């Protein structure tokens, strides 16, 4: 069986779970533990990607560049990645990240808008970066649209194309069918990123591998937006039981969560992401996972039900990055 390449996003998607307040010490410790566990790629930065720090998405405690500088020296084997969402971060920002030692970039667009990434994917390739095309909110497109957008990213030079289930709204059979379809028509390898809003993140990841995906994302204890991502240590356990070769040490992955991440979370007085009524509604309504905490805050501010806010955002077909819509929706619900 072929090896699976693991990208851990505790330090990027997981940044949502600490409202982007990791200290430099936190990221160093977590990165060292992930590196020791043998994770292939470690993604770092604001949850909304390079330059995501803002009123709209929440300010980061440190800049993306300071996080990169802190983490780079502690890595021995793992490659360092950043997320770049065109419209939020720019090629100039990516160049700065590369100068600081980033080797991988994931260029993310909404599933129907791949052409917005043409400039960025081409520039990343020119910089010599390993470049991943990241098609977010994949559940909102039919199979053929997904393929056409993936083909665009491939044509710009992407080394891998991901089907990203940002809403944690996809089901195992759907993941299998879509990845199989991509695999059949793309020359480059395929990847999958999931969220656990419907409790299916690990199952979907296994489905993706079976359908031909070579790249799978995880996050320690599922640290990430919504109900969290695929827990890396659970994923490794499941991969091992399925006899799927990978490069991550099972116990070390468990320890990285238990002994490194959990104390950091406890110290901040925060809770680990878990399946809740809110995350369930996120997955059910097909809303961007990182809307959840913003919706909760807006619901408190305007004294409305978080679930109503999320359902309405799903109905309006808000896409990733449109956190500002949450305030409007909550405000309007409060006037009803």
């Amino acid at each position, binding site marked *: 069986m072929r090896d699976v390449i693991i990208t851990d996003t505790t330090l990027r998607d997981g940044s949502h779970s600490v409202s982007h307040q990791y200290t430099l010490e936190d990221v160093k410790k977590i990165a060292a533990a992930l590196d020791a566990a043998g994770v292939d790629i470690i993604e770092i930065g604001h949850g909304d990607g390079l330059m995501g720090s803002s*009123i709209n998405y929440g300010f980061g405690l440190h800049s993306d560049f300071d996080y990169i500088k802190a983490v780079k020296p502690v890595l021995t084997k793992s490659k360092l990645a950043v997320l770049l969402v065109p*419209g939020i971060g720019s090629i100039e920002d990516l160049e700065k990240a590369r100068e600081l030692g980033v080797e991988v970039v994931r260029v993310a667009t909404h599933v129907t808008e791949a*052409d917005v990434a043409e400039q960025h994917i081409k520039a990343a390739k020119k910089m010599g970066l390993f470049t991943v095309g990241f098609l977010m909110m994949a559940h909102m497109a039919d199979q053929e649209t997904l393929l056409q957008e993936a083909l665009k990213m491939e044509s710009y030079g992407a080394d891998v194309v991901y089907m990203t289930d940002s809403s944690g709204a996809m089901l195992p059979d759907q993941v299998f069918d879509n990845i199989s379809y991509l695999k059949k028509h793309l020359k480059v390898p395929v990847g999958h990123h999931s969220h656990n809003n419907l409790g299916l993140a690990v199952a979907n990841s296994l489905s993706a591998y079976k359908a031909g995906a070579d790249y799978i994302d995880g996050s320690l204890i599922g640290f990430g937006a919504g109900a969290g991502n695929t827990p890396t240590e659970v994923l490794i356990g499941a991969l091992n039981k399925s006899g799927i070769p990978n490069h991550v040490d099972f116990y070390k992955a468990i320890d990285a969560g238990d002994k490194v991440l959990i104390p950091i979370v406890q110290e901040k007085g925060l809770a680990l992401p878990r399946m809740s009524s809110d995350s369930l509604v996120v997955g059910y309504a097909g809303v961007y996972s990182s809307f959840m905490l913003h919706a909760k805050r807006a619901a408190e501010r305007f004294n409305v039900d978080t679930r109503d806010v999320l359902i309405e955002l799903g109905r309006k077909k808000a896409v990733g990055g449109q956190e500002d819509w949450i305030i409007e929706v909550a405000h309007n619900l409060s006037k009803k």
Partner: protein
Amino acid sequence: MKKLKAAIIGPGNIGTDLLIKLSRSPYIELDYVVGIQESKGIDIARSKGIDTTTNGIQELMARDGSDIAFDSTGAKPHLMHAPLLKEKGIFTLDLTPAAVGPYVVPSVNLNEEILNEVNVNMVTCGGQATVPIVAAINRAADVVYAEVISSVSSKSAGPGTRKNIDEFTETTRKALEKVGGADKAKVIIVLNPAEPPIFMRNTIYAKVKNPDLDAIRKSIDDMMEKIRTYVPGYTFLLEPIIKDDIVTVMIQVEGLGDFLPVYAGNLDIINSAAVAVAEAYAKKKLGVNE
């Protein structure tokens, strides 16, 4: 009455919409459309009896009579066009992110000085929609930091916009600082593919020194009135609210539906602004007093 003659360079979504808007102008006559290939825009121009070329800027250079040019090509082509147009003394409205000349947002800084320039930049659609609001808040409350999130429908974002996303955010950011008066600014753009297409919408967050909501509201209301003289479909989606020192305002822009349907307010606002500037220039040249 005598009119100034204008050319449009780049008859894509923006250029073709301009063509329709200019046909209503009492001060400007569109008499030339410059493309580099056959297109829907060129067809429309021909059907209206307007002289056209598909051989690019050279044809315009070889021709006399144009007083005003609207360049809606792209940042790179405009860098090439700008010196040529300047040499010919054609007053140029740059609708690309090239920004060779100063930024102009009619409701904020359309003045004599601007009309004496030979090349002015129309910022971006997001800039035309949000700089006035930031300027209004700044006058009342002193903006330390402005942040703008522009959402446009996927259908209204043509290939030019899609290939220039970085330039869009950068140009808009600079205009929020230089024209809007924010000490610092940040811009985010999101394309939304929902059907039916969403109207162009802009969220403006402003961190202010003097959080006096009544003064801010009044300043914004005055500004809204000015903008509506050239963009009638400019309305609040969320009237100003404040939390601590952060003001939030949301604006929706409904277009006139000239070339693209009304949801493409992004296209409408930059074009209506460009026509407003060109008409001010024309009135000055023609000696029209109102």
